[in-house]
């Protein structure tokens, strides 16, 4: 089915783009709080796009559902990990980055 292939391919490319954005954010953002954003948001959106694109190609319903089950797991995990790391960083006295005054 060419339409399904087209949809799947564009979802895969979309996911690759969001993963790329997350890596750029991890490399370029100035402190640990902002880097958490790159990891917890952009990367999980990329993972969701890739998993949805692959689920469209799956042979069986069970495989498609298993692929789509990875995504809520990753979302819950990143929400918990992001909150926990940010709270610990705050407790340890790491000051959030502010734009330098000109």
């Amino acid at each position, binding site marked *: 089915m060419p339409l399904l292939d087209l949809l799947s391919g564009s979802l895969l490319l979309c996911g690759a783009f969001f993963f790329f954005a997350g890596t750029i954010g*991890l490399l370029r953002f100035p402190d640990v709080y902002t880097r958490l954003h790159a990891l917890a948001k952009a990367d999980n959106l990329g*993972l969701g796009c890739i998993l949805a694109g692959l689920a469209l190609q799956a042979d069986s319903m069970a495989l498609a559902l298993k692929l789509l089950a990875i995504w809520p797991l990753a979302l819950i995990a990143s929400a918990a*990990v992001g909150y926990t790391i940010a709270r610990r960083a705050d407790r340890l006295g790491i000051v959030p980055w502010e734009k330098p005054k000109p």
Partner: protein
Amino acid sequence: MTGLELPIALFLLVNLAAALWRAARGPTPADRMLAALLFGSTGAGILALLAFAGGGPALVDVALTLALLAAITGIAFAQRSWQRHGAHEGGDDNAAP
């Protein structure tokens, strides 16, 4: 199979290699841990892609396990491992000393 799986898996691998720079640079232990967590989520994506590029459906189970382990690792790091002596004053790694 659209033929895109393997190129995108390679592209994600290049992303992981670039994220190693952040793991090496730090400056706080949390930044190194973020690179490890990136290996968890991107690795799950790569494994799912490889499952459709000829690796077989078992790799999807491996991806599920990897995503689960990355979550446990992150929580254990923040709750147990990251203590005061490892902390870095100030979050900005470009700040003057």
